[in-house]
C-alpha cells in the first residue's frame, strides 16, 4: 500500500511535469479549478491581476483596457475556450494586449485552472 502510494505520488508529479511542458495542456480535458482560489489570483497584483485591466463585479479600482468580465459563460462557448484565451490570447488576436498567462508561465497550471473557473463563474 505504502509503495503504491509512493508510486501514485510519483505518477502525479510526472503528470504535472508533463502538463507544464506540453505546449497546450488545456486542449485535452476541461480544467478543474477552485473558484475562490481563482478570485484571489484575479485580484492579486503579483498573480493574475485581472482587475488591473478588466472590470470585475465586486472588484475595486478596475482598469479599462480589456472588456468587463461579465456573463462569461454566454460569451465563451466552452470553459476550454476561455482557458485557451487566458493561456495565450494572442492566438485568437495577435494584437491582443493581454499577457499570455499560461504560455509564458505567469501562472501555474493549477492557478490557471482556478482563475478560469472563477472568470467562467462571472
Amino acid at each position, binding site marked *: 500500500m505504502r509503495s503504491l502510494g509512493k508510486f501514485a505520488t510519483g505518477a502525479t508529479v510526472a503528470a504535472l511535469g508533463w502538463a507544464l511542458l506540453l505546449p497546450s495542456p488545456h486542449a485535452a480535458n476541461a480544467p478543474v479549478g477552485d473558484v475562490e482560489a481563482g478570485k484571489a489570483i484575479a485580484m492579486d497584483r503579483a498573480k493574475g491581476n485581472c*482587475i488591473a485591466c478588466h472590470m470585475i463585479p465586486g472588484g475595486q479600482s*478596475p*482598469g*479599462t*483596457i480589456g472588456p468587463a468580465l461579465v456573463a462569461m459563460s454566454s460569451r465563451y462557448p466552452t470553459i476550454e475556450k476561455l482557458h485557451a484565451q487566458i493561456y495565450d490570447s494572442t492566438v485568437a488576436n495577435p*494584437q491582443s494586449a493581454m*499577457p499570455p498567462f499560461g504560455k*509564458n508561465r*505567469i501562472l501555474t497550471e493549477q492557478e490557471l485552472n482556478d482563475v478560469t473557473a472563477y472568470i467562467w463563474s462571472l
Partner: protein
Amino acid sequence: MNKTILTLAAIGLTLGAAGASQATPQEDQAMFQSYFMKRFPNVPKDDFVNGAYALDPVGRENWEAIEEFPPYETAVSNGEKMWATPFANGKTYADCFPDGPAIAGKYPYWNKDKGTVVTLTMDLNGCREANGEKPLKPETGPMAELNAYIAFESRGQIRKVVIPEDDPRALAAYEKGREFYFTRRGQFNFACVTCHGANSGNQLRSEILSPAFGHTTHWPVYRSKWGEIGGLHRRYKGCNEQVRAKAFEADGEEYRDLEYFMSYMDNGLPLNGPGARK
C-alpha cells in the same frame, strides 16, 4: 477598429518591411503625431508634454498643487552648484559647453565621428573624463541633478532632433529605436506601444496610461515612487522590468536609439523638464 488605430500600427508594420515600402522618419513622425492628436482631439498639441495630466483633470489639479513647491527644486539647485564648481584641474562644465547650461535642446544628436547617438549625459560624462574626473552614473544621483539644472535652464526650447541624411548609420539607429518601441518583450509580452499607443488614456487599475507623444520632453523627473530625481533611461529600465523583461544599460546603445526615435517623434514640442510625476 477605427482608422487611427490602423495608422499607428502602420508605423510598426513598416518594421522589417521591404525597403521600398518603408516610411521615412518624417512620414513616421507625421503619422505618430496625428494619431495622438486625433485620439485626444481636446488636448492642445503642446499640452502632450504633460503626459497623463493632459488627459485627467483631477490628476492635473493634484499635480499643479505639487508644482507649487516643486519636488525637483533641490535637485535643480544641487545641479546648479555642480555646474559652477570647478573640477580638480580648475576648469568647469562651462569650458566644455560654452553655450551652456541651456543646452538640452541639442540632445540627443547623431555623432558622425563616433557613429552613435549621443545623449546629454554622455557629453557631460565626456566633459568630466576630459578633465580628469570620473564619469557619473547617467540615470540617477548627481548626474540626474546636474541634468535637472540643465533641463530647467532649457525650458521652452523646441525639440528638433535631426537624422542627418549624409550618414546612413543615423537612419539605422533611428530604425533600431523604432523597432525597440514596437517589439513585444518580457514575460508579459508588452511592447512600449502596447500601453502607450492604442491603450493610452485607458486605465491600468487606477492609473491613466500616458500617450507616447510627449514622453521625452520633461526629463529628468522627480518621481514620487522613487522619492528622488531620475533620468529617462532609469524610467526605461523600470518599464522593461515591469513587463518582466531584461533592462538594458543607461546610455547603452538600445536606450540611446530608443531615445533617438522617441525624441524625433516629439519634434516640435517645447521642453519642460525637470518634471514631477507619481
